[in-house]
């Protein structure tokens, strides 16, 4: 490890109602990958935002290569050679990939004002090739999947050639293959002497990629350790300060045989092709597949969020005609989307309103009068149940950390008391503690007779939680596995079972990567 690049000490930051950082310290050396971990709301993002000039610190000192610096805005950080991939996507959806990557430093031609579009497209192409991302630089970002957008963010951060690169949960939207690609790039950079701050809730990644780990809790610095000296369990206990709930492998036998949801021959354009499956009472049905396999599409179609071309849906044996989410909710179906900010939350509104949003009709009196006391009690009960960390029911959701936001969305559907719950990537961007709570919650829900569809891109999670697993590829269900027969290998086999014969021929010899390489 080389010289000390960044040294932060005594950092303080307070938001209205939240002491986000107190006496925080952090050290980054050249040529190391330094992981920053902690529960949701521990202050990780805040710390790196202070370092990159997004927030100004209340107190404390920052040294860059030994010299004390002030970083009042992102531009200064860029000029120092610090770049960041934010936890939330920060792209301009109406602009192309190339335009996004070179925003703010467009090559000019002629008199200084003319853009050189050709050059940025070329440079972008090179950059994308470097990270093995095959995209046309002229594609509009709005047309990309979240995962692709995340890769574009990574490409953008790389393009600065910075000496310090900060990645705030870069893998939360990535498939395992893409994650491996990212690690390859990170190692390359590290070998060149770049210092990397790596924030993630996927603790198994730490062992693969990080040299040192700094743990934060409740806005405070806990400790910095060398990764090879500690176990994951040790890190976890440092993070949460307690033991966490661990499921044994979900019981393969599902008690009930009663089918609560049956989907027959669902079709929607090219993204859903003849999807049929059923869901039994008290069952957790895992949906596995690669990025873009169509799992989200199926969920949205069932939920009535998108129109379908054909297909039948039966709830408890009765054929239902779901035309809108409203119909679905009436049939007792709840859907927790994969992009909570866009589809799940009213960011500008308080925790209470978000939790009771789908339920409020239950608390109405004469002329639509809302019974505030009952609403409050309902919301409070879910805040307590889910241990949502918030200063109060009136706190605006946008001020909660990502994990707590996710819990608020879950709270909304628990309040609604739906028979059938579809969880789309329920643990995306959530810390281990909260994750285990969510697992426990899913199990409790299933035990209490609710039926759950769980879409997840994390195979270990799928394997651990599901009674049964459906695997999708290219809009079709390519296989169904019971918990006992499921392994990562078999799931991957189904997940890559392509329709196109030509592709099959060309790739029949492809070896499925082994489980460890997939991050298991």
């Amino acid at each position, binding site marked *: 490890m080389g010289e000390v690049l960044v040294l932060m000490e005594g950092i303080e930051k307070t938001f209205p109602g939240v002491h986000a950082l107190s006496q925080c310290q952090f050290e980054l050396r050249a040529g190391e990958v330094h992981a920053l971990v902690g529960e949701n709301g521990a202050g990780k993002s805040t710390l790196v935002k202070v370092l990159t000039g997004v927030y100004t610190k209340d107190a404390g000192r920052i040294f860059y290569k030994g010299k004390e610096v002030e970083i009042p805005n992102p531009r200064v950080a860029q000029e120092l050679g610090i770049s960041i991939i934010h936890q939330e996507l920060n792209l301009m959806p109406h602009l192309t990939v190339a335009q996004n990557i070179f925003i703010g430093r467009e090559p000019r031609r002629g008199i200084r004002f003319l853009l050189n579009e050709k050059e940025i497209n070329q440079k972008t192409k090179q950059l994308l090739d470097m990270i093995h991302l095959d995209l046309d630089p002229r594609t509009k970002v709005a047309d990309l999947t979240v995962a692709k957008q995340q890769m574009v963010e990574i490409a953008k951060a790389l393009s600065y050639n910075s000496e310090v690169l900060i990645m705030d949960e870069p893998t939360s939207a990535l498939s395992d293959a893409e994650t491996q690609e990212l690690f390859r790039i990170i190692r390359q950079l590290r070998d060149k002497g770049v210092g990397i701050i790596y924030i993630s809730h996927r603790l198994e990644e730490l062992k693969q990629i990080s040299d040192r780990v700094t743990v934060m809790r409740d806005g405070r610095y806990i400790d910095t350790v060398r990764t090879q000296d500690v176990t994951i369990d040790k890190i976890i206990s440092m993070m949460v*300060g*307690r033991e966490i709930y661990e499921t044994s492998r979900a019981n393969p036998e599902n008690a009930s045989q009663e089918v609560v949801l049956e989907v027959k021959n669902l079709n929607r354009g090219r993204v859903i092709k003849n999807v049929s499956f059923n869901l039994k009472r008290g069952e957790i049905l895992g949906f596995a597949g690669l990025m873009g396999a169509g799992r989200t599409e199926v969920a949205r179609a069932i939920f009535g969020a998108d129109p379908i071309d054909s297909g039948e849906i039966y709830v408890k044996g009765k054929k239902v005609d779901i035309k809108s989410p*409203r119909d679905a909710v*009436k049939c007792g179906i709840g859907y927790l989307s994969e992009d909570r900010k*866009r*589809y*799940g939350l009213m960011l500008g509104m308080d925790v209470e309103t978000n939790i009771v949003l789908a339920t409020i*009709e239950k608390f109405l009196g004469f002329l639509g009068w809302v019974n505030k006391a009952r609403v409050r009690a309902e919301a409070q009960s879910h805040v307590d149940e889910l241990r949502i960390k918030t200063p109060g029911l009136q706190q605006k959701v946008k001020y909660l950390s990502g994990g707590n936001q996710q819990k608020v969305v879950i709270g909304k559907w628990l309040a609604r008391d739906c028979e059938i719950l579809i969880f789309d990537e329920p643990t995306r961007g959530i810390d281990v503690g909260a994750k285990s709570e969510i697992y426990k919650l899913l199990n409790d829900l299933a035990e209490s007779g609710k039926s759950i569809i769980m879409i997840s891109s994390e195979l270990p999670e799928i394997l651990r939680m599901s009674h049964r697993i459906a695997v999708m590829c290219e809009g079709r269900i390519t296989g169904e596995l019971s918990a006992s027969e499921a392994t990562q290998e078999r799931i991957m086999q189904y997940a890559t079972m392509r329709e196109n014969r030509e592709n099959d021929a060309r790739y029949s010899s492809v070896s499925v990567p082994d489980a460890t390489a997939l991050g298991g």
Partner: protein
Amino acid sequence: MESRPVTVKDKAILEDRAKDKAVLRRSLFRSDATQKILAFASLIVMFVVFSLASPNFAKFNNIIGILLATAVNGVLAVGVTFVIITGGIDLSVGTVMTFASVMTGVFITFWKLPIIIGVLGGVAAGALCGFINGSITAKMKIPPFIATLGMMMIAKGLSLVISGTRPIYFIDTPVFSKIAMGSVLGIPNAVLVFFGAAIIASLILTKTVLGRYTFALGSNEEAARLSGINVDAWKIAIYTLGGIFSGLAGVMMASRLNSAQPALGQGYELEAIAAVVIGGTSLSGGEGTILGTVIGAFIMSVLTNGLRILSIPQEWQTVVIGVIVIAAVYADIIRRRGQ
């Protein structure tokens, strides 16, 4: 929960609980109420300044005049507050108001219907326009700016067509003018109607489902839809409610002028929207209060009246109002930032 030794986590929870209380205290202090009192303060300052500048300003008659001048625009502003909180806009409030007053005239003067039917009919005409605005916005997915711009023109044209481009007088029904101009304890009915409407609106906004959904639509419409809310229907309901207030304003206007003036109305939408925004409601939706709107409407009319009383030349009045509109919103922004 099963019994287990107290862990670090539990301590953290206890600590959190203490922290929460502090936060709660702080957030009570910066509650909406406090904020509006501060906004109210700037209204008071304006009042004091004008009172010192002219002995005629703070006289009872002039205050009543200010209240009257606020009433119609205030009701319009209250109505458009709902639409703005959903993240929409309603440019048609002014001409819909006119349309409603023309329809009242048609019912009462042309068709000789009872006054109460005329009043309800006028309000219903406003509601209909609002309903159409809402339907165009919700079902045809036309941005509200355009939908209501279209409605602005349609209502304007129809008012002229229906009235035969002539004012409709309520000469045969002298009682009609009492709706706005009668008074209780010296306070004109129009003012009482305005306050009544504002109170009802405030209750709707804060205590009913409609109010909650108004905020929800403005905050994240897609999330609302995916929560099973019938977004289109509620949106139509909210625009209809806005139309009802425009209709009420139309009846008040007709009563005050004892006539339906078909050419009036355009330009009122900007005044109403300005009042809403000065009152702290955000044009991007998701937040706002009726009390703020009422204060905003008063700031506008106190200013206009005060400058008139001081006999400031009219062209300068325009300049001053322009500056104050910006300053008032800026003060609101500073205030929020300070908290």
